């Protein structure tokens, strides 16, 4: 707590650092808002510029981009049904239907507020119990990761209660896509068809943007020239109504909890966190049938969880020097360049740096919240731009984003390819979230299973000797059986009008 205070005061007392941080947040918000450009891209593009700054300034700017980038994804998700950054994917489920119902302003303000809440709750986890949480993170070995992946796949069933068979097929398609490239243990190339460019697998940004941005653009292109309902957002309130905040307190806290826990586990990420929390909130909700039709709890689940991941991911980074996701691994590189050795010692000896990470995270969340309220007023004006001007611009941005992350044209073709595949699938009644879940969780399950089975010398039963694994597997089983349990209890489990 003291570190947070000194760090925050230190930053507040240094107008130049504060300005750099605010610039970082703005840059992040813009990168987050534009589909195709992401927080990770923003951080890696601006990393070289931090070389010339002091460590505190450099860290402040990178954290600003991180927080801004994750928060900025909700505008496009709510207004266009295209996630501005993959982590806001789940926001589309309910944010866009809300906008269609004429509650766009409310959805945006609720999303911005949820992002803020997720950020602040994860800040408290980071400041107060980081070392303890890092220890929990270390308890996760290969078997635990494997079980978590399996549990996550259980979500597919409740995500697709409308058409379980198609949902399962979609999840398997996703897992197959995740298998492309070198296998995690032997290094044997799979499904590459001789293209060496594919040996590291389908590039994830290009794949996700293909499925969501490109596919959605193609779907909406069909309506060009036709009379369509126009989404009008009149006014975005500064805060969602107090009543709404109060009745979602459980949602805020549960989603933040899930976000923080997922954040401290390296390589799992925002999308998984928001899907898990969406699923969890629906299961405890009194009105599960409303999810997917423009329900406030859906927006809360997604935006709270994905921002809570940021604070969670900073925990192993600052206490152990182990990055929780792509952005924090770039942040670590930034520390080294400034002559700081990231690792357990940093947390104990360089309290000034840790303080500026904490303080930077707090101030970033505050600035991001205020900036979002301002920026959103500009973004809703973009809705007045006709789709036939807006879509080509988004398309170009996606191409730039896909190209920049690895600097190769091949990734752009992946973007186009997955876009077309996604379009064909959605037109045939398959839904995309299970594909994404399979694509993200498949490799986690596979590589950890193989590592675990090698470590236990072929003994699969070892998974049942580990309490966390068993707990996660039981949870997964409950997810699988949930629709049936509900039928037995005589409860309705309609997944809603969006059809997953």
């Amino acid at each position, binding site marked *: 707590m003291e570190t947070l205070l000194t760090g925050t005061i230190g930053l507040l007392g240094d107008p130049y650092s504060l300005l750099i941080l605010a610039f970082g947040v703005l840059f992040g918000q813009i990168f987050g808002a534009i589909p195709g450009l992401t927080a990770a891209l923003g951080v*890696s593009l601006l*990393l*070289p510029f931090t*070389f010339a700054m002091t460590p505190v300034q450099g860290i402040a700017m990178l954290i600003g981009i991180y927080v801004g980038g994750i928060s900025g994804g909700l505008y496009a998700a709510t207004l266009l049904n295209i996630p501005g950054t993959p982590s806001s994917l789940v926001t589309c489920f309910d944010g866009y239907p809300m906008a269609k119902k004429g509650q766009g302003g409310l959805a945006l303000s609720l999303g911005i507020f949820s992002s803020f809440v997720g950020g602040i709750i994860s800040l408290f986890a980071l400041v107060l119990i980081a070392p303890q949480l890092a220890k929990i*993170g*270390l*308890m*996760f*070995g*290969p078997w635990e990761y494997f079980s978590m992946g399996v549990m996550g796949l259980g979500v597919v069933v409740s995500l697709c209660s409308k058409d379980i068979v198609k949902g399962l097929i979609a999840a398997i398609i996703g897992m197959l896509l995740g298998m492309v*490239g*070198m296998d*995690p*243990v*032997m*290094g*044997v*190339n799979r499904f590459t068809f001789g293209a*060496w*460019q594919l*040996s*590291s*697998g389908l*590039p994830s940004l290009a794949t996700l943007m293909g499925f969501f941005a490109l596919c959605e653009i193609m779907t909406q292109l069909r309506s060009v020239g036709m009379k369509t309902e126009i989404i009008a957002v009149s006014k975005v309130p500064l805060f969602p109504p107090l009543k709404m905040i109060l009745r979602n307190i459980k949602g805020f806290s549960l989603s933040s909890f899930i976000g923080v826990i997922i954040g401290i586990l*390296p*390589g799992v990420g925002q999308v998984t966190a928001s899907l898990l929390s969406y699923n969890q909130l629906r299961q405890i909700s009194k009105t599960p049938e409303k999810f997917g039709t423009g329900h406030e709890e859906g927006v809360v689940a997604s935006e709270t969880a994905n921002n809570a991941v940021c604070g969670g991911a900073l925990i*192993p980074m600052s206490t*152990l*020097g*182990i*990055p929780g996701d*792509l952005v924090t*691994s*770039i*942040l*670590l*590189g*930034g520390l*080294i*360049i400034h*002559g700081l*050795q*990231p*690792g*357990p*010692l*940093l947390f*104990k000896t360089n309290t000034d740096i840790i303080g500026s990470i904490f303080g930077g995270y707090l101030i970033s969340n505050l600035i991001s919240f205020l900036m979002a309220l301002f920026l959103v007023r500009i973004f809703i004006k973009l809705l007045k731009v006709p789709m036939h001007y807006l879509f080509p611009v988004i398309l170009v941005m996606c191409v730039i984003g896909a190209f920049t992350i*690895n*600097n*190769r044209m091949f990734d752009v073709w992946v973007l186009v390819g997955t876009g077309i595949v996604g379009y064909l699938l959605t037109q045939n009644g398959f839904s995309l979230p299970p594909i994404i879940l399979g694509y993200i969780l498949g490799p986690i399950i596979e*590589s950890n299973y193989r*590592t675990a089975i*090698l*470590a236990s*010398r072929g003994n699969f039963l070892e998974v049942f000797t580990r309490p966390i694994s068993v707990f996660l597997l039981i949870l997964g089983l409950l997810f699988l059986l949930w629709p049936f349990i509900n039928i037995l209890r005589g409860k309705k489990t309609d997944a809603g009008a969006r059809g997953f």
Partner: protein
Amino acid sequence: MKKALWISAVLVLALAVIPLAEGFAQDAKYPNKPIKMIVPFGAGGGTDTMVRAYQKYIDLGGQPMVVVNIAGGAGSIGVMETYYAKPDGYTIVCTGWQSMLSYYVSNYVKVPVAEEMIPIATTVSDPDVIAVVKNSPFKDVNALVKYAQANPGKLKWGSVGAVGSNYAASMLVWRALGIKVTYVPFDSAAKSRAALLGGHIDVLLCQVSEINPVAQSGDALPILVTTKKRSEFLPNCPSMGDIRAKEEFTLYRGFWAPPKTPKPIIDYLEKAFSKVHENPEFRKFIMNDLKYSLMFAGSKETRDILNREAPELTILYKEALKNKAQK
């Protein structure tokens, strides 16, 4: 209307002449445009940070060095992008011959890249180290060997990758110590370190530069360095020489150009890199912050090292592949 036509005609002509002019200039002097430096790993990693230090200090006749990250395939994708680039000295890559050799032997790539690429220089070496967690029952190599010999295959030995240099180095150490263990491959360095600290593996083999932060804090205990000499960064940790083993492994990193790059260009670049090594500020950064051992082997010397050491390593890589295939 006519005026517009004239202007566009002139513009088209001008555009047509530009490439010609560039062609002339290229003959005149190298380098006359930015040099693309491919880093086959992501931004922020060890290789990336090192290359950015070179970028800061190198003098390429006023031309900038542009760092491009092409990650994936354990570094093989960035190397292949360089392999297929024009051999005009404007695309080079930061890698080492041991990695390139493993891409070929392990069938990641179909061409013998280490043989065909042209070395510019080998600039740093980073030995491997084996480490245990701080509350491990094994406080030194002897305790570890004793346990492993009494319980063959019981020790969980983690590292990154199942084929390639980390596995090869592990095999050398097993041979030197005369032990049998269960090898546990991870897909990233961060995960393998977390697995060691969390007690999911008994031993971790990684590079000295990677273990340093957790060794300094006392969370991990390095117990053996894989070179004959002790590491300058872990002066208290015994080396292969201390236990009288003949085996030795250290990971080299340096700069390479596409096959058939003309010799004058290689000479120019080799000189440029060797100049950087004279800069005390640069040396301080590489040693204090990255914990790499600095060295300098030019183009010819790198080729000599490769010719001398590659046959043995190839055998080791092949053996590693065979071991895996049996499992």
